């Protein structure tokens, strides 16, 4: 059954002078746009992959982000364009929220030469160096140690860039999680660890991966703040992330943020649903996009029509991305070895 979610937004309220209170309307509409973009992107990719599978053209593994959009949108909304993001196997949302091109991501997922990784990577290996997007990752916990390095580089280069590293609650059972938080804490490096606790790692309940009620409390082992946010409330996520990112940017070291959330679809396309119906129903009723749109309309920040217009524009862009992908060539096998060495 759905857990009550702790909200630690006041975890260091005295330090939060630069927190945006979230009442800025255009910002909220931007968050909305971003979440809707991710949601429709994922639904479209599922459609495309399902069609390809039906046609006997196995498209590779697909872990979609729908249901968790508030986290990527909220966290990335407080980042500078040159900040670094490390993502996971469930990373399309992070990629889009960090500003990656819809067309190039769609192309990559379908193995086209115009993809963000030129077709070499696919869903679990999306990279965009220019955008500070340091990769989705096929290895659970794989991004965590690497996030130390960009954080260190920011210190030595004195450029104020902050690193954000996403991972699932399952990933918090990997040794690399602890090695990374520990070293970041000892070194006071500017990195923010964002755990997306969607209560399952593939089919395994969080209680098998962690004996604590909150992953955030693992921060205690490493002497850093550990805070919980409602991962379906984009404003709560944003506010929590803002505090942690500011703290990092000020040189005060890392923070562990846990965002409680729920994925809408099964773990990946080839694994059947196994979660309790009641739990699913409760969580689906707290859809992060509906939560935000309800707030926007209730408070008179936007009309249903304005929101629909945003959504329609995103659907147009998505269609363009699909066409772009479909008209893109596959990578040339003759040059496959050319990019191994620099």
């Amino acid at each position, binding site marked *: 059954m759905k857990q009550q979610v702790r909200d630690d937004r006041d975890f260091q309220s005295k330090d939060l002078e630069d927190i945006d209170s979230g009442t800025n309307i255009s910002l909220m509409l931007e968050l909305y746009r971003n979440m809707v973009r991710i949601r429709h992107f994922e639904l479209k990719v599922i459609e495309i992959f399902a069609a390809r599978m039906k046609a006997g053209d*196995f*498209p*590779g*593994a697909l872990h979609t982000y729908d249901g968790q959009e508030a986290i990527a949108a909220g966290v990335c909304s407080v980042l500078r364009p040159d900040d670094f993001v490390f993502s996971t196997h469930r990373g399309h949302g992070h990629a889009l929220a960090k500003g990656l091109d819809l067309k190039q991501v769609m192309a*990559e997922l379908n*193995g*086209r*030469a115009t993809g963000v*990784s030129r*077709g*070499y*990577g*696919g869903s*679990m*290996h999306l990279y965009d160096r220019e955008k500070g997007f340091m990769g989705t*990752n*096929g*290895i*659970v*916990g*794989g991004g965590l140690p690497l996030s130390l390095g960009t954080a260190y580089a920011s210190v030595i280069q004195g450029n104020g860039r902050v690193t954000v590293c996403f991972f699932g609650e*399952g*990933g918090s*059972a*990997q*040794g690399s999680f602890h090695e990374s938080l520990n070293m970041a804490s000892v070194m006071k490096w500017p990195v923010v660890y964002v755990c997306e606790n969607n209560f399952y*790692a*593939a*089919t*395994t309940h969080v209680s*098998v*991966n*962690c004996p604590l009620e909150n992953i955030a409390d693992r921060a205690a082992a490493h002497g850093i703040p550990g805070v919980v946010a409602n991962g379906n409330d984009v404003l709560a996520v944003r506010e929590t992330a803002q505090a942690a990112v500011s703290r990092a940017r000020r040189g005060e070291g890392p923070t562990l943020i846990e965002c409680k959330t729920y994925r809408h679809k099964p773990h990946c396309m080839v*694994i059947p649903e*196994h979660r309790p119906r009641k739990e699913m129903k409760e969580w689906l009723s707290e859809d992060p996009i509906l939560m935000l749109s309800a707030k926007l309309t209730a408070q008179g920040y936007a009309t249903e029509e304005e929101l629909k217009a945003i959504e329609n524009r995103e659907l147009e862009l998505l269609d363009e991305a699909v066409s772009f992908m479909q008209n893109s060539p*596959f*990578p*040339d*096998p003759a040059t*496959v*070895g050319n990019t*191994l060495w620099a």
Partner: protein
Amino acid sequence: MGVAQKDVALSKRRLKLIKALNEAIDEEMARDDKVCLFGEDIGAFGGVWALSSGLQKKYGKHRVFDTPLSESAILGTAVGAAMAGLRPIAELQYIDFLTQCMDPLFNQGAKLRFMSGGQFKVPITVVAPCGAGTSEAAHHSQSLEAWLLNAPGLKVVMPSSIYDLKGLLKSAIRDDNPVIFLWHKAMYDLEEEVSEGEWTVPLGEALVRRAGNDITVVAFSLMAVRALQAAEEVSARISVEVVDPRTLKPLDIEAIRTSVRKTGRLLVVHESPTCCGVGGDIVRQIVESEFKGLKSAPKVLGGADLPIPFAKSLESACVPQLKDIVRQIESVVQG
């Protein structure tokens, strides 16, 4: 060297890979209550590959259980439990995740008997899928058998038929040493007619899958299937003998020698990177003992020395395809 044992007088049925492996584990758990099974998602759900389907229900949560997402802890549990007298089977969801559990497997489990002066047995079986061809890119497409073979103390099994998959997994579980058992992800649809009931296939015995006179092709796992297709394709012109070692350690080098003595020519095919792969190791051994009888230079057709790329167009360029095997057979025969 074994022979294909398909003429056992038992009723026949068609069997696929996962069911074959599930049966093997089920039978071994029924036979020996020291056998236990754990890994990610393998409990009530039955494993992401359905390998352990029904087993937790049958053998209980003590003997079949889900672990945290911690491969080092999983392998550590296996090695420690073996030290205490159990016969654990640990599942890795992909053999690629070896990188997360190298120490308990390589530094501890594989070396334990040796380092302790022979005091311990370490009868663990690690089961995992391997291989490319499923558009899963650089972190989910490796086989890594060369690492496993270079490190002393591990047995390595990579079968290519349903009969062997079941029979060898049973032998692996019964073996008193650490065994890594790999099945190929591109073989889930393979179906074979086999008998009902139990059988075992011993570790360390190669099988001549097809007899021939002009060239010996050594291939295992999916590449054995593909080598047989290639042999068929060139059969009008070239008589190909296909030897499937089935286990790579212990390797039945005698069977390969016997075949090469007959054909005088050797091609080894494998999909993992060529550099420091099994191919070179077999060539090394054959050249050392059969140099004078060789009619042409032995050759290795291995995978590209590249990570596995995502796009199909790239991926298939990195792993030996039917046409590549045909071409190399011709090239070795032409000398």
